[in-house]
């Protein structure tokens, strides 16, 4: 009896010590495989409209870092992208402009564990000659001002509503665009007096628009998340891209250059 108990103790002890060592070993071997084994394959990344300028640049950097990989992009409103995946679209990575839209993909069992990789805030964009002379958020409430927002079904629309509520400004927009780029287009063309868009959108079109910056304490923030899609046929490349987006100095540097802020 005693012998058996001792032996059992020894086994438990051995197992415990193995368990303690094992993760460390696993980590080492994972790092080794990152450096040695070559990942190859093509991935399709479905990404929010507001990422349409920056993602192709990061995609290029990724392909350079991992030769043999090809990254293709599909841009659209975040909720549209989730619906496309629900409908069986062959997508490997999903990047949304809000935690809410990513959460809907997670609860539907469509994607793996999401990572936050960037943040964005809101700004007011006006045509270059600022016909309605907008200088503050409160100016948007002036009667006769043609203000556009995104529809409440996409992250930029939710953020715009939060921003207005937070600053106790009540407006009647003339249009609810289905993605931020079409809203921006109508500001650039001069058909709208102002639009509530992302800071990064203002930056992307340069001097084609004027903008009003909103102080951080009065602004709202949206967090971009990225995850691999469960049905992916190239899970290694997909996971590599997700990690690259969050952890690599290059991807984070490019994001910063386009006006996105750090996710942590």
């Amino acid at each position, binding site marked *: 009896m005693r012998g058996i108990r001792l032996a059992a103790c020894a086994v438990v002890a051995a197992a415990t010590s193995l368990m303690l060592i094992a993760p460390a070993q696993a980590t080492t071997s994972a790092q080794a495989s990152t450096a040695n084994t070559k990942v190859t394959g093509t991935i399709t990344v479905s990404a929010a409209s507001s990422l349409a300028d920056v993602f192709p640049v990061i995609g290029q950097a990724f392909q350079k870092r991992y030769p043999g990989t090809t990254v293709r992009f599909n841009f659209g*409103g975040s*909720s*549209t992208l989730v*619906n496309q995946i629900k409908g069986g679209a062959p997508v490997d990575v999903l990047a949304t402009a809000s935690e809410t839209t990513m959460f809907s993909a997670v609860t539907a069992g469509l994607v793996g564990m999401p990572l936050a990789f960037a943040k964005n805030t809101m700004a007011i964009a006006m045509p270059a000659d600022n016909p309605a002379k907008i200088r503050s958020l409160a100016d948007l409430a002036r009667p006769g001002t*043609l203000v*556009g927002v995104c*529809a409440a*079904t*996409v992250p930029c629309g939710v953020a715009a509503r939060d921003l207005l509520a937070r600053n106790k400004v009540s407006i009647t*927009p*003339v*249009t*609810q*665009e*289905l993605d931020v780029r*079409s809203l921006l287009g*109508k500001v650039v*063309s*001069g*058909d709208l007096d102002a639009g509530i868009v992302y800071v990064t959108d203002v930056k992307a079109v340069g001097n084609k628009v004027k903008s009003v910056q909103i102080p951080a304490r009065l602004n709202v923030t949206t967090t971009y998340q990225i995850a691999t899609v469960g049905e992916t046929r190239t899970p290694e490349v997909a996971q590599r891209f997700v990690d690259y987006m969050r952890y690599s100095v290059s991807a984070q540097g490019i994001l910063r250059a386009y006006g996105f802020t750090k996710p942590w």
Partner: protein
Amino acid sequence: MIPGSLAVIFMVLPVLGLVAQAPWGSFGTLLSDPVTRDALRISAVSSLWATAICIVLGTPLAWLLARNALPGTRFIRALVVVPLLLPPVVAGVGLLTAFGRRGFVGSFLYDQFGIQFPFTTAGVVLAQAFVAMPFLIITVEAGFRGLNKEFEEVAATLGASPWQTFRHVTLPLVAPALLSGIVLAWARAVGEFGATIGFAGNFPGVTQTMPLAIYSELEVDRSLATGLSVILLAVCLVILVLLRRTYLHGDRAND
């Protein structure tokens, strides 16, 4: 026979899918939703105005084209089909550059009269008329072309004025073509999406037509979007069936 039946099956299947997926239990709530009612109202009003514009402007052009009465008829006929070939979203951008607040016609209208098309129901009408016009012109022109000119000549020799000839001889003969042109143009106007959202924007009660409401809903709840589609489909089918009676009679009279 087989390709024909395949065509029918191909066209019917998606519609069956919609009907099968429709949330039959929630139609009451859908129909009493102000967003649905607004969208149905905007669709009805704008598509009727657009069709009226097509009739008033398109019919005379169809007649002129059929009679080769204009210099460069071939060129004009090619221009007429351009809205058919343009992707509707591009048509929306084109309309903005012409009739937007900074457009070459739009800026004049805005500066002189304060008239603005984008973000108004009038803008929706403009977008729909633009894409629907070719359907009316092409159909009606074919009707005018198929006309036997002798009838008109006989009327003229019997002392009928050009208007009397048109009203009592030409128009009844061309009525079936006119009616099918009207139906086609109206159907195109009702289904219009891309040019409308690109040019007129998307706001419930002002510019949000049924297709825009359906697309907006598609991002949130697919079954409700399917429900809205079935409502639009049902309304259009009822109208088409009612019209088809008169339209079929016209066809028989022609035979």
